[in-house]
Structures are given as C-alpha cells and as structure tokens.
C-alpha cells in the first residue's frame, strides 16, 4: 500500500524560531489564516500572505520538497476550482479563492512540520479540557486528531492502489471501479483501526 500522498507535512525535527514558538501562537496563526480566507477580498493580499508563509516554511528547514508535497495533492482540485471560478466570477476572484486555500494548507503544514505530534496532541487536550465538565474526554479529542492525520495518507495510498488495479483491468474510466473499492477499504481500515485501538486500551474513558 502506498501512503505518501500526504496533505499536511510531517514533523521535521529542528531548532528554528518556529520550532521554538509556543504552540498557542502557531495555532492562532493557522486560525487567523482560516479567517483571512473569509475576510480578504484582494488576491494580492492573499498572494503576499502565501509568500510570507512559504518563506517561513522554508526558513523552518522543512524544505521545498515537503512544501510541494503538501500542495501537490491539491493541485488538480485547485486547477478545477480556479478554472470554474474564472469562468463564473473572473480572474481576480478565482485567484483569491485558490490562493486562500493554499494559505490555509501551507499554514496548517507549517504547524505540523514544526510541532511534534505529541505536543500537538497535548495542546488539543489542553484546549478540550474545559469541555470535561460536559462529559467530554480530552484524550479522545487528541486521539481523534492523531487518527485523522494518520488516515489521510492511508486513504490517498488506497486510491493510488485502486487506480492502478483498475488500470490493469482496463477499468480506469469506470468510476464505480475506483470509488467502491476505496470506500470498502476505508471502512475496513476504520474497523481495523478501532480494533487495534481497543486492543491497546486507547480511546477508553479515563479511570
């Protein structure tokens, strides 16, 4: 199974300013970038923010290859969205929408590339702690995020495998031959993951 098509960059050990920055600050930057995509109406601002984030990403030592790796899986979708919006709403709007999506992806990649996943999970636990009084288990929140990060490459890898199998049988133009196996494999994977977590006693309520 291939599992390298990853939307967010994996953690890269380092000692850059971003590596040392508090998690809360990095989280706020990601949040701000997400909000920015709703507020900013000028594509030039989006381009400038994207350039700044790209600079920060490279400055962290995560490298151009990882940056491209984070953006590449989105490229075909962005192309379709961009062309459609250009046709519907014109060039500047299309550019703004595509650039804003890239801003969100690069900002999130910056967070995951410079923060060890356990620190990220500890942050989620802290953030979810106020909900404990309503019966929520912060560790389960953290586990959910962890599994989400792990599942994206699995599903991307499954899609690549299924596409190759369909090609080998001459079924590459049949959407059912592509979608159904990915769906079935993903459900089986979810069940196996659930069983593996249960076997390790993870995800159970606190004692």
């Amino acid at each position, binding site marked *: 199974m291939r599992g390298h098509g990853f939307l967010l960059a994996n953690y890269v050990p380092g000692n850059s300013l971003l590596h040392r920055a508090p998690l809360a600050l990095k989280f706020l930057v990601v949040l701000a970038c997400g909000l920015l995509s709703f507020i900013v109406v000028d594509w030039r601002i989006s381009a400038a923010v994207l350039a700044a984030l790209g600079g920060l990403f490279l400055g962290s030592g995560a490298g151009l290859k990882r940056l491209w790796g984070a953006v590449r899986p989105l490229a075909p979708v962005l192309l379709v969205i961009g062309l459609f919006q250009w046709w519907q709403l014109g060039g500047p709007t299309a550019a703004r929408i595509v650039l804003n999506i890239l801003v969100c992806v690069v900002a999130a990649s910056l967070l995951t590339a410079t923060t060890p996943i*356990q620190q990220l999970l500890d942050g989620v636990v802290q953030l979810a702690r106020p909900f404990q009084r309503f019966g929520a288990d912060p*560790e389960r929140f953290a586990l959910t995020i962890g599994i989400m990060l792990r599942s994206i490459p699995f599903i991307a890898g499954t899609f690549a495998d299924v596409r190759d199998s369909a090609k080998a049988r001459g079924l590459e133009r049949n959407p059912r031959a592509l979608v159904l196996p990915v769906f079935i494999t993903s459900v089986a994977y979810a069940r*196996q993951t659930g*069983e593996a977590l249960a076997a390790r*006693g993870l995800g159970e309520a606190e004692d």
Partner: protein
Amino acid sequence: MPAVAFDQVRVAVETEDSPQPKVLLDAVSLRLDEARVGVIGANGSGKSTLLRLVNGLIQPTSGTVTVDGDDTVRAVRKVRRNVGFVFTDPLSQLVMPTGREDVELSLRRSVRNGTERRSKAESALARLGLLHLADQSIYELSGGERQLMALAAVLAVEPKVLVLDEPSTLLDLRNRELLRRTLADLDQQIIMSTHDLDLALDMDRVLVVQEGQVAFDGAPTEAVAAYRHWCMQALDPAGRDAP
C-alpha cells in the same frame, strides 16, 4: 507466568445465511501457563477468535476467559493493560505517522509528563534496536521493521502477556528470523497463532485448532505432526487430489 484460563468457552455469531448462529469456537477449556504457547490450524479454524478472547476483543457467548484471575468481560480494562496484542498487519495497528509517535501514544495514559514519555518511548525503541527508525514515516519502513515497531508500541506499556495473531505471515525469511529472535528474548508470556510451523516448534506447548475446537494440545513436535496429518487427510480424503 500469569495464567490464561478458558472455561467452557463458546463463541457463536448470528449470520444472514442461516437461522442458526455460526459457531466459531466451542467447548474450549484450557489453562495456559507456559511461557510460550503456539496456536496452529487452518484458515477459518478459530485461531484468531481464540486469541482475541484473551484480550477481550471478542466476548464469549458462554463460558469465561480469565487472565491472572481477571475476567476478560468484567475487568476488560485491567485485562487490556496486562495483555498486549500484535496484529498480522502492522499498518492497521500503527495509528501514528512515525514509530516514535506511535510508541508515545501507547504511553499517553500511563506517563503524563511529555519529557518522561519521550524518554520511555526511546528506551522501548532502543530495546528492539529501532531508535534509528523512530522518526521515519511508517510507510517507509520494511514489513519486518513495521512489525517490530508495532511490537515496540505494545511492549512500551510492559504487558504481562503478549498475544500475536500470525505476526510472520506478511514477512520475508530475513524479517521472520528477526522477529523470531526478538520474541525469543522477551520476558513476557507469549501466545501466538502462526502458519509458520518452524516458529510453532519453538514453543513450549502448541494447540491445534480445528473447526472451532482444540483438536490437539501438547508438545510442539506432536502437535505439528498431527496438524500435518489432518491437512493431508483433508486434501486427499479418497486419493482424488493426490499428485
């Protein structure tokens, strides 16, 4: 060694094909207190069901399973703390992007302090000689390395019993040998199902499971011989399939 005890265990599941429940395991009564117990048998014979009962992943329809006196239904959390489970496919077991993160995940409940957790995770990885692979994506590891990584994540919480469900099925000869040597050095009680009869011969006691029942229980050489005999008999009941 902790004792794993099965008392008149039956596992049956409802199926759409038949009004009668399908019996996966029936009338199993055993006490396993040897350091190394092997479980062999054909595909679909009930080996995995037997192993999953030890960790509480499957509950018996009737009868009881206990680990060191703890019932796997009533005290399932305690049982799972004491019984580590390694699956055939490590990719379905490793839930974090890298081995280090997965081992740290195992330790999240027991070790709250991040620095201490990291140090314990490194010790667990170093013990199996995996520290140099700790930060690699699990997709970049070989099958054997992944299986050892899954083992390290389970061993990090120091279980008393280690259950392995066909751990060598997806491994090549070299990695199978690596796994075999690693298992030989462990202090835990090991209960392992396998199709690798050489691996079964390393055990202290071997159970042969056939059609949901323990058809043979005894010394490895005799168990393997009995299993071979039954396989040949099933393949060639009247000499029709003989080459």
